[in-house]
């Protein structure tokens, strides 16, 4: 068990500082929307959104690892939590986003105008 009763306060404040800085960076990017990132695309999504998603996953990692203290759990517990979640989320995102994009194409290229 991870209950060796040592205080983690230093790490906690470090993670807090890190998460705050990342949030501030996100907000600044969101307000100014630098054209370099905003107008250039990679795999159908603009670079700004890629940055936002990467920073989000970065924050999520620190919340789960440091605050929820998965880093101190046995690796069997760690992976039985992380793997199914990651796999299922990627799966549902892939299916729904592909399908959404397909329906967008149907609306755009056919005679259906609107709207449900």
């Amino acid at each position, binding site marked *: *068990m*991870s*209950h060796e*009763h040592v*205080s*983690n*306060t230093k790490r*906690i*404040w470090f*993670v*807090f500082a890190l*998460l*705050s800085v990342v*949030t*501030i960076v*996100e*907000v600044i*990017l*969101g*307000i100014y*929307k630098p054209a370099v990132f*905003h*107008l250039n695309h990679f795999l159908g999504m603009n670079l700004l*959104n890629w940055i*936002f*998603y990467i*920073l*989000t996953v970065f*924050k*999520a990692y620190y*919340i*789960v690892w*440091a*605050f*929820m*203290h998965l880093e101190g*759990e*046995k690796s*069997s*517990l760690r992976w*039985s*939590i992380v793997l*199914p*979640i990651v796999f*299922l*989320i990627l799966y*549902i*995102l892939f299916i*729904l*986003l592909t*399908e*959404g*994009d397909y*329906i*967008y194409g149907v*609306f*755009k290229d056919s005679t259906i*105008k*609107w*709207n449900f």
Partner: protein
Amino acid sequence: MKATVTTANSEEKTWGGGNEPMGASYGKLMMWFFIMSDALTFSGFLAAYGFSRFKFIETWPLADEVFNHFPFMHGVDAPMYYVALMTFILIFSSVTMVLAVDAGHQMKKNKVVVYMFLTIIGGLIFVGSQAWEWKNFIKGQYGAIETTGGSLLQFVDKDGKRVALADFAATLHEERSQLKRSDATWFMSESSLPSYSVAEVQAGFKAHLELLIRTEVIYEGSAEEAKNSTINHDLSKVKFKTVLTREESELRLAQAAHVVEGANLIRNEYGNKLFADFFFFITGFHGFHVFSGVIINIIIFFNVLLGTYERRGSYEMVEKVGLYWHFVDLVWVFVFTVFYLV
């Protein structure tokens, strides 16, 4: 009390119970089970949001035009500051929670009390902020027109700045009656009449020659669009909403069907109808999680005060509610990105 305390006696009786192959107690493992299923629920919601957004990718509202209020700064365009503050508050309450867990490991009751209290306060401020955000969203700021075809028209001046209906709508002395359930043919009614009628907005638009209409469509600056003479190319910015020429604006406004003010589950002045539905549903569901988290935290807080865990010899209960509280924070990180940033 023994059952609630983590006991590591895996030496003997592998099949006799009391054995923890993952090194986590029953309660903690079940909290993880719950968190996993809840995480999948939320990802289902967010994926559905992504689906609808991809479906209407050319007309989806832009977040920084919708959420631009800040307390005590009336009329100032402050995109995202407020929601950044909310995010910060929630992260901070997560920090005080993990400090409470940490103090619990060292059996320092007074520290646990203080940190739990701060966590509860942070949670309450967050829920209150969300209520304020909803209030602004529901009330709206500018108002818009929905056409018979179901698309949404907003109004801008010659500089491309948004104009509220109240600033130009004419006052026609006409009788408008609210549709009541008792007057309706089928189960129909309307909750309230908008401040202006369609005719008043149309008359006001005719009288103010400098006004233009902004559509939902996001301007891409493509060659095809450059040839389109109905678009005002000076005011339309790439990746922002398309502004029409005056002639085209008049044509579009002739098809007006409804005056839309603020947001409800049927239509909203920001754009796509589904946008408000998803906003209400997902932030509402998250807000409900925060609310129930606060309630659970209060219960545990009183248990700490009463010395329940001191007597039990373990503050693991604080750790378990801590897991839930961090999860709520984790979900917010994603909601924040998906609704406000992207």
